[in-house]
């Protein structure tokens, strides 16, 4: 183990090693500002022209006691000179702002990786709080890593001395000092962060000054201190990225904007009715701040009220959207059945999290596919779509609105806590280039039948209250074909059940045929994914293809109905592997639909797949 204290460190020679990609994790106490540090580093990295993906990892507790392991907050970024598909399996660099952060994260660091610790926080008391019985910096437990022990606390205090802050306030700049050091390590430009600090603390100039001084001090430390052997500056070259204007976007943002855009394309007011729940709340929060875009948001008394208000909004001619996570979606099941029966458009967003029951609200999982496809009483088919990445949420949201309004049907949109919180660079689309799909409300009183059907889509007309002459009654009791009046007629129920099923099944003709993202269009093995497993599958299949294995990546957006060509496509592979962050759900649907011997690769530990896990599974099947 190599550790050094600040005093020993001397300037390096300025040599920078080139690396293709790096994973850095910032970890500290909830109060240490790690999320902010991470997002500034992300921006700087994007500006440096790297591709990247990030993932924040919040503690489950709101504000755990300082220094405890369950109060640790982390932010991971994977960036590189090549396409980046995930936030990275394991960090190459771990920044640990206190013993607890070290404790929680060290297990995941790559062997030979670098740990930067703020030794100023390694008091006996803090070690004990973190659950260490011995000092990990002294007992050899870090021998596999490069350890850079710096008294960041002290150095920060020194660097901001002149601004006359209290000790507590001054220490708040520790994260910026650290960021400065990491900026130096990867040769990032500090300027945007300095600008951002000026702007953010415009009214508290000395805070801005202190933070800026801290960044600069951290950076200078890197430039001037002699790092332990093997540690030096790195260079990560430009990635080959499509030109254009970029920003980073989280899944929650992309979803909110996509929903707003979908409503605009449909020419509808958007009514989002929701009830807070982790990790779904951000959609509500973001749309609540977008009222200028003909958006109304409603925090209902519970999830049932939320979905019902969205249905009411749809009945009155708005785009009704409701949003929750697993337990809340379970509560909406009965009402979603009503929407299926009355055939009103409705978008239901499920930000999945680990379950069952309350489960682990802050951990990710993709285990609500069954609930989405099957989770209602009776035969109640609807459309299920899944977003594959933060940026993908934008398009999937628009598609959800398109299908809901065109086919007068509820659409369940599956995303998850990982996608929602993770961010990635996004080539900002030109919204004016999107094809509008304005809703045509029923307008003609003559020959109006609320349950007549469009010959092509089988959708019934959408007649808005307020339209003269179109008064009609709908409800949850079976409706007579055509008139919509209550009907207990046996054959009518058969016909209506068939119509509802056919309408949804027919949507398979209106969605793109399933493509193959990587690899051959038939062959030995297809890895079929959906949702947020996209990144690791994509990279793993890419790597295996590079290594000459015959494997393809197929990723489903359309979970129900499945794309028309999927059965044929899958039958072209000898084996099918379905990685899912659940106990095997899509795999059930594929097996039942196509009688293909698809096998699951399942993981439910609240963590996204690692690329290596998928690589290993592919190898086991092709080489074993």
């Amino acid at each position, binding site marked *: 183990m190599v550790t050094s204290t600040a005093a020993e460190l001397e300037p390096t020679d300025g040599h920078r090693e080139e690396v293709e990609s790096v994973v850095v994790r910032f970890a500290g106490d909830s109060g240490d500002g790690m999320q902010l540090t991470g997002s500034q580093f992300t921006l700087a990295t994007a500006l440096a022209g790297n591709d990247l993906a990030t993932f924040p990892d919040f503690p489950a507790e709101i504000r755990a006691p300082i220094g405890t392991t369950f109060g640790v907050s982390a932010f991971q970024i994977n960036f590189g000179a090549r396409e980046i598909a995930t936030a990275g399996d394991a960090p190459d660099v771990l920044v640990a702002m206190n013993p607890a952060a070290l404790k929680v994260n060290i297990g995941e660091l790559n062997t030979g990786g670098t740990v930067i610790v703020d030794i100023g926080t390694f008091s006996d008391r803090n070690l004990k709080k973190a659950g260490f019985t011995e000092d990990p910096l002294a007992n050899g437990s870090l021998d596999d890593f490069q350890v850079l022990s710096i008294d960041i606390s002290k150095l920060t205090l020194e660097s901001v001395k002149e601004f006359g802050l209290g000790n507590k306030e001054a220490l708040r700049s520790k994260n910026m000092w650290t960021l400065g050091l990491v900026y130096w390590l990867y040769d990032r430009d500090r300027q945007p962060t300095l600008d951002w600090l000026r702007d953010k603390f415009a009214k508290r100039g000395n805070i801005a000054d202190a933070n800026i001084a801290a960044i600069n001090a951290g950076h200078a430390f890197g430039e001037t201190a002699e790092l332990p052997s093997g540690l030096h500056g790195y260079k990560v070259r430009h990635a080959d990225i499509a030109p254009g204007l970029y920003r980073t976007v989280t899944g929650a943002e992309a979803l909110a904007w996509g929903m707003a855009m979908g409503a605009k394309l449909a020419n509808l007011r958007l009514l989002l009715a929701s009830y807070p729940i982790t990790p779904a709340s951000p959609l509500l929060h973001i749309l609540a701040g977008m009222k200028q875009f003909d958006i*109304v948001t409603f925090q209902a008394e519970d999830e049932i009220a939320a979905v*019902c*208000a969205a249905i009411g909004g749809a009945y009155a001619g708005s785009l009704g959207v409701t949003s929750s996570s697993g337990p809340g979606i379970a509560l909406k099941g009965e009402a979603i059945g009503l929407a299926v029966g009355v055939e009103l458009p409705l978008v239901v967003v499920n930000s999945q999290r680990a379950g069952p029951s309350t489960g682990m609200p802050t951990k990710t999982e993709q285990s609500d596919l069954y609930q989405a496809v099957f989770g209602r009483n009776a035969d109640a088919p609807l459309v299920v779509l899944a977003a594959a990445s933060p940026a993908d949420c934008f398009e999937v949201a628009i598609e959800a609105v398109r299908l809901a309004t065109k086919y007068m049907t509820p659409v369940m949109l599956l995303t998850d806590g990982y996608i929602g919180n993770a961010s990635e660079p996004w080539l900002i689309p030109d919204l004016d280039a999107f094809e509008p799909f304005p809703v045509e409300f029923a307008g003609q009183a003559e020959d109006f039948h609320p349950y007549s059907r469009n010959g092509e889509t089988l959708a019934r007309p959408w007649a808005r209250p307020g339209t003269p002459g179109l008064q009609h*009654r709908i409800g949850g009791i079976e409706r007579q074909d055509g008139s919509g009046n209550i009907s207990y007629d046996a054959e009518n129920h058969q016909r209506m059940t068939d119509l509802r099923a056919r309408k949804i099944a027919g949507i398979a003709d209106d969605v793109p045929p399933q493509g193959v993202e990587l690899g051959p269009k038939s062959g030995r093995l297809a890895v079929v994914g959906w949702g947020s497993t996209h990144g690791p599958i994509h990279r793993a299949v890419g790597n295996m293809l590079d290594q000459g294995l015959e494997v393809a990546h197929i990723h489903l957006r359309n979970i129900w109905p499945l794309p028309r060509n999927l059965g044929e496509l899958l039958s072209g592979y000898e084996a099918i592997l379905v990685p899912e962050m659940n106990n095997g759900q899509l795999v059930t649907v594929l097996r039942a639909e196509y009688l293909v011997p698809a096998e699951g690769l399942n993981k439910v530990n609240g963590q996204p797949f690692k690329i290596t896990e998928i690589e290993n599974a592919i190898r086991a099947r092709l080489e074993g």
Partner: protein
Amino acid sequence: MNVQAEIDTLKAKDFASDQEVRWCPGCGDYAILKGVQRTLAEIGTPPENVVFISGIGCSSRFPYYLSTYGFHTIHGRAPAVATGVKLANPELDVWIVTGDGDGLSIGGNHLLHVLRRNVDVQILLFNNEIYGLTKGQYSPTSRIGTRSPSTPMGSLDRPLLPAQFALGANASFVARAVDTQQKHMPDVLKRAHAHNGASFVEIYQNCIVYNDGVFSSFAEKETADAGQLRVEHGQPMIFGKDRQRGIRMVPDTFSLEVVEIGKDGVTEADLLVHDEGDRILAGLLAEMRGPDYPVAIGVLFCEETQSYDTAVYQQVAQVREHASITDLNELLRGGATWTVTE
């Protein structure tokens, strides 16, 4: 959209749909249907701007029998659906029809919150103190000891008083009507409609099959005069066949008593004058019941406030006025961006 265009021409029958009415013969719901149709005609909002939303229950079949827009939703959820309708289009006249089971058992939470929020809807709760549609189980308003299929030895739980519940929910309008009081009902319903906010109207309704006569002590022809106190804002509280009885405050207490005018020196001037704005008085009126007290009907409480939907759209208007970014393209390009060149 209270366009009064056809006010002079609309008749009660213009509000009847073509569907056959399917309540049990003799059910109190028929009378309420008539009363509502008459009220709608008198209000005069064109049928296309009127929406009736209901849950599930005998009472909740109501929308099918009206020529307005109607939505027969699911059990207990009508207030939530109606809130969505108002948020999507606050111009519509929205009425909710619910029962004592639909509104106070499974739907209690939504009723609570639509009242608290003060969404501008009219809520008609048909209270027959029983579950009609599911064949006679007791409900949250059934009196202790009610024998029903689920309580063959008599029910044991304390009932709710719907009006008291509504007051506790911070409702801004609480009223009562009786199915048999055909003249009185439209007045109450018109007041409910005129109120800007959530108007709660409990309607005593006789279920002839499962709970016949449960309100006979005040709802029948012979008992109405002695059993009902029709309150009117600013008017002294008088009742009885010869209008010889009245309600008075018991001095130095928070309670009411029944007095005989002309007896023990009591004159009309001693009687309590109804004040719709007094929530505490409304609570006292809500609690009154036989045999010693008359049942108060009419508008027990009315507080003028802004409705939730009005406030929502005012806020939207404010945001629109002050928003710096009004174009989605611009929003996406706000914050930190960077350009990648070839």
